[in-house]
C-alpha cells in the first residue's frame, strides 16, 4: 500500500514512487522482457517516469505500470519488425547468456511464445506468469474479458502445436 502524502498536488511524492520502485521495478523489467522487449529496463524505467508525470498515485498504481509496459513493448515491437525489414544488416548471434539460463526444454516454449502475435503473448504472460485473473488482464490490456479468454486459449493452442511440431 502506498502512503499518500501530497506535498505537491500535481505529482506523486517521489518517496511514494521510490517505495513502489523498490517493490515493483524488477517485475516490470521481467514483464517487458517476457513480452519480448529489446531493452526491458528502458521500458520499465519509462513506465516509472510516466507514473511520476501522471499526477497523484491512485489506490493501486501497479495495473497502470503494467499497462504502460505492455503498450510500450507492443509499440516498439512494431518498430523493430519494420526496422528489421528496412535495415538489411541482420547478424544472427545467439546470446550465450540466454542459452545458458533457459533450460533446453524451456527454450522451445520460449521460442514459440516469441512467435505469437503481440496481444496473444501479452495475455499468456499476464495469465501464466503474473497469475492475473481474466478481469485484471482485460483491464491491463484495455480489452474485454471475452477477448482475453479467446487470446489465452488461442495462445495456448498455438504453443501446444509448436511443441508437437518439434517433438
Amino acid at each position, binding site marked *: 500500500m502506498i502512503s499518500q502524502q501530497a506535498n505537491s498536488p500535481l505529482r506523486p511524492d517521489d518517496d511514494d514512487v521510490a517505495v513502489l520502485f523498490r517493490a515493483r521495478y524488477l517485475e516490470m523489467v521481467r514483464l517487458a522482457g517476457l513480452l519480448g522487449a529489446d531493452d526491458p529496463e528502458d521500458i520499465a524505467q519509462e513506465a516509472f517516469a510516466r507514473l511520476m508525470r501522471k499526477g497523484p498515485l491512485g489506490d493501486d498504481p501497479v495495473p497502470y505500470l503494467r499497462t504502460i509496459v505492455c503498450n510500450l513493448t507492443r509499440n516498439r515491437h512494431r518498430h523493430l519488425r519494420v526496422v528489421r525489414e528496412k535495415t*538489411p544488416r541482420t547478424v544472427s548471434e545467439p*546470446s550465450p547468456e540466454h542459452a545458458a539460463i533457459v533450460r533446453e526444454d524451456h527454450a522451445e516454449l520460449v521460442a514459440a511464445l516469441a512467435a505469437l502475435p503481440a496481444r496473444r503473448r501479452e495475455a499468456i504472460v499476464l495469465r501464466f506468469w503474473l497469475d492475473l485473473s481474466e478481469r485484471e488482464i482485460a483491464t491491463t490490456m484495455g480489452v474485454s474479458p471475452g477477448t482475453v479468454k479467446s487470446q489465452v486459449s488461442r495462445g495456448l493452442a498455438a504453443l501446444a502445436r509448436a511443441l508437437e511440431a518439434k517433438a
Partner: protein
Amino acid sequence: MKSHPIEGQLRDALAARAEAFSASPDAWQQIQAKDARLSRQRHSTFMIPAAAAATVVAVALSATALGHGFSGTVGHRAAARPVTGNPARTGRTVEITLSPVARVSADQLAAAARLISERVARSGLPVLPAAASHAGAATVVGPNVVLTGLAADKSALEGLAGMGVLRFRHVLLEEPADGPANGDANLVRPGVLRLFRKLVCTPGESDTAWQQQVGYMAPADWNDPAAQVVSCSSGTKYALDAATVLGQEVTRAVPAPSRPSGQWVVALTVNGAAASAFSALTTHLYKTYFSGTTTGNQNDVVLDQVAVVLDGTVLSAPETDGTIAGGRLEISPPAGLTRAAASALAAELRDGPLPVAFRIAGTAR
C-alpha cells in the same frame, strides 16, 4: 479458464525465462533522468518561439530482439565490433541495375546516380576500388543506374536506392494482424476508408504487393502530402492523415547515439516552418489523446501516434508522450538502431529524395 496440458510446463518456462532479466544498480537514477529530461522539454515548449529554432526530431526506430535480429550488435557492443563500415572487407561483388520508373532526363539520371553514390559513401558501406576510381558506387549505364558493391551488402544497397521521400502523418486507424482496428474511422475520408477496409496486409510481403491491392501505382500515390493514405507495415494496416512535415524540410540527418541506452537513432533537424507544423500536431495529439493512453484506451493509443513514413511504408509510429513544440522533439524514448542501421538511414534522408524512383531491373554477381 480451463486447464490446458501444457500449462504447468509453460509456467515453469516463464518463471525460468524471467530470471534472465535483472535490474541494473543505477535504474532509479535513470528514471529520474528521464523524468527531468521530459520536464525540461515541456518547459522549453513555451520559451522557444516556434519559428525561431529548427526542431531536432529524434526518430526512435528500434533495435534488438531476443535471440534473433540484431542481437549481439546492440549499441556499444556494435561499436566495438562493427559489422559494416569496414573498408577493408572484401568478398564477392554484386551489380544491381536500377531502372527509372518514369521518363527522366540525362541530367536527372546523373543526379540520381550521384546522390546514391553519396548515400553509399556516407552509410559507411565499403566502396569497391573499381567503383571508387570513377564516379562512385552508382554510375549511369545507358538508360539505367548500376549500383556496385559487395554481395553481402546487397539488401543494404537496395535500401539506399529507395527514393527516400519522408512524410510525418497522424495515425488515424491501425489494425494489427492479430487484432481489431483501433483509432477513429470518422477522421478518415470515405474513399480512403474503403481502401483501408479492402486492404489485406501480410507480414513479409513486398511493398508493391500491398500497393497493388489499393491501386497505388506510382510514388505520387503514396507520397502526396495533401492526401490521406493507407499503408502496410509488417502485417499492420494503417490509415494515415495528410502529411504535416515533409522530407524536403529536413535540413540535417545524422546518426546519433542515444542516452542512456547507448543505442543509435537518427537525429533529424527540420526547418522552422516544419517545426511549427509539428508542434501544432503534437500539442493537439498530446492534449486530445495522451491521457486516454494512460488508462489503456486502445483508440487513444493509436490516435496518439505520428507515423514516420518512408516511401509509403511506415518506419515507426511513435506515441506522442509529451507536449512537443519548438525545441527538442522526442517521440517515445529512442530504443535505438545499430550504428550501421542508423548511418544507412541517415544517409538516405540527409540530402533529400532522389529525383526519380527506381525499380530493381536485375542483379548480377
